[in-house]
């Protein structure tokens, strides 16, 4: 049969009130499946990346027994441990400042400054800071100068135009009080970074100078030593060092939330799959009964089972494609809101930027298609078994 004739027949088959209900159902189900598969796929493939790129997840402080080991001795031991990339005292580790240039109705301008060694970050614009004590820092590409950035307040698109501030003098007050000549010299890539977006990095020496000048009253000798691990799972090798009482990660990963979402998504995929299967099955079965007469009359004029079945298959294929495309579009609009709902409890996880990749769409597409056609295939077995006489003499 020629294609134009086939299409003509197909259009008669598809344009049908019953199909509208079917398409709406399929759209809903396929968008659930696409969302859940993309979440699975997105989280699974990006999770390691996030952990590797999020600097503060590998930070820990070491609590020691001052009677058995001095701070100096411990520092030496830690520096010799292969899992420790960097170790430093509190005055070399943390500071904070307020940048007046960035103050707005949604941003307080407050940033955290973390002391580190250079070369840790992939620089997108500008350069890394120098380690000679000059007043330089690098800030994240998702920069948002405020400690509270949860949901409605944090907006990825609400940038401050950080590029324009590279190497420019800033109105910056250390600890909110003391004006300092700090400059932003570079912007680092924070695409896969769950560290707070108001963290900027400076050299240990710079931070030490600032803290000794403005926070000299603090007793740094009695504070714990900070370390940067190569991987936070190696924390136990530090715990075993003599004189160490405990090692505590600065930032705990909220894996529970992630796992909950994955679990919910898993269940949703399974339920949606079962629903798609049985709905397709029952809807097509009903359709087949409604169309018994039409199948019968097609047989009467000489159509064989092969063409009749292929019409049904093509119909399913087209309806599936329409539903998946629409489901995908709906998904783009709805999924970020949906994720926000899940991740509301944890601002850190709100930073996760789960995009729907082409592979994901392809996987979901093939998945949905297989399920649709499986159900139809089972139903269509009945066409060959159909008693034509029942139709002719209803």
């Amino acid at each position, binding site marked *: 049969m020629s294609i134009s004739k086939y299409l003509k027949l197909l259009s008669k088959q598809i344009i049908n009130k019953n199909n509208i209900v079917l398409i709406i159902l399929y759209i809903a189900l396929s968008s659930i499946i696409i969302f859940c598969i993309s979440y699975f796929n997105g989280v699974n493939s990006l999770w390691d990346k996030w952990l590797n790129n999020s600097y503060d997840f590998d930070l820990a402080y070491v609590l020691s027994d001052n009677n058995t080991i001095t701070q100096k001795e411990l520092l030496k031991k830690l520096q010799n441990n292969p899992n420790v990339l960097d170790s430093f005292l509190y005055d070399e580790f943390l500071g904070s400042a307020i940048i007046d240039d960035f103050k707005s109705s949604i941003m307080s301008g407050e940033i955290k400054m973390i002391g580190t060694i250079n070369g840790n970050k992939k620089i997108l614009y500008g350069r890394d800071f120098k380690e000679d004590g000059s007043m330089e820092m690098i800030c994240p590409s998702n920069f948002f100068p405020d400690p509270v950035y949860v949901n409605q307040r944090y907006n990825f698109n609400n940038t401050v135009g950080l590029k324009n501030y590279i190497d420019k003098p800033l109105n910056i007050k250390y600890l909110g009080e003391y004006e300092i000549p700090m400059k932003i010299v570079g912007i680092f890539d924070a695409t896969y970074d769950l560290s707070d977006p108001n963290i900027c990095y400076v050299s240990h020496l710079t931070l030490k100078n600032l803290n000794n000048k403005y926070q000299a009253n603090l007793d740094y000798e009695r504070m714990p030593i900070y370390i940067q691990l190569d991987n936070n799972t190696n924390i136990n090798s530090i715990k075993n060092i003599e004189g160490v009482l405990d090692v505590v990660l600065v930032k705990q990963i909220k894996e529970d939330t992630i796992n909950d979402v994955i679990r919910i998504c898993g269940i949703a995929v399974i339920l949606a799959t079962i629903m798609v299967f049985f709905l397709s099955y029952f809807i097509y079965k009903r359709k087949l009964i409604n169309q018994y007469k039409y199948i019968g009359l097609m047989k009467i*004029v000489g159509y064989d089972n092969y063409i009749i079945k292929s019409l049904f298959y093509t119909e399913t294929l087209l309806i599936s494609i329409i539903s998946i495309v629409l489901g995908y579009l709906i998904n783009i609009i709805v999924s970020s809101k949906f994720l926000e709902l899940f991740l509301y409890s944890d601002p850190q996880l709100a930073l996760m930027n789960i995009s729907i990749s082409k592979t994901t769409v392809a996987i979901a597409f093939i998945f949905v298609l297989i399920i649709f056609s499986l159900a139809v295939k089972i139903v269509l077995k009945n066409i060959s078994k159909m008693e*034509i006489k029942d139709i002719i003499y209803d």
Partner: protein
Amino acid sequence: MSILKLVNCSKSYIKQNKVIKVFSNLNYSFDCGKFYAIMGDSGSGKSTLINSIVGFVSLDTGSIVVDNILLNNDKSAAKIRMEKVGLVYQNFLLHDNMTALENVMLPTYLNKSFTINSAKKQAIYLLDSIGLKERKNHFPKEMSGGEQQRVAIARALVNNPKIIIADEPTGNLDKKNEQFIFKLLKKLSKDGKCVIVVSHNNAIKKYCDVLIELRDGKIYEYK
């Protein structure tokens, strides 16, 4: 000239362990250009016989040859229904979502010798010949029973088959429409087609060339 041959055809149904013998060892040959009326009591096997000719009922034994095609599987049955036999049934069996024209065109999609345009021309020509040209864009629901049956006959004719088989074509129609349909079928047989009509209606005797009666599983020929 013989166009349709039944050779040693037997059919029985088994229902609840009881064997219902419909017919056995039927031998018959149908010719072109003749109008055959098949009559017989209800349950005598008329529908079973004509449905076995087009493969809707499978025979226990025997063979059926339609215009040199041996009916032996689903494919040959579909081919016979498409090329050789136009079928008409009591309940018209038109597609409700298609207009009269589209219904008549339906069989032509299978026919390589028709393009959509030439099929349309042929369908309009046939609708015209049965007086329904003005109704070509009407759906079955918008037509009377007699008109629907005429559309069904046009559909049976559109691929130009040599055989027309009708099972109680006038069963749902009044006297006037009945006469019209019988006359139409008669004319088709005069034009060279082999027309086989099952009917309870004695009026058919006026029109037919050969009267066949099915009784006790056997064929009796009159006229």
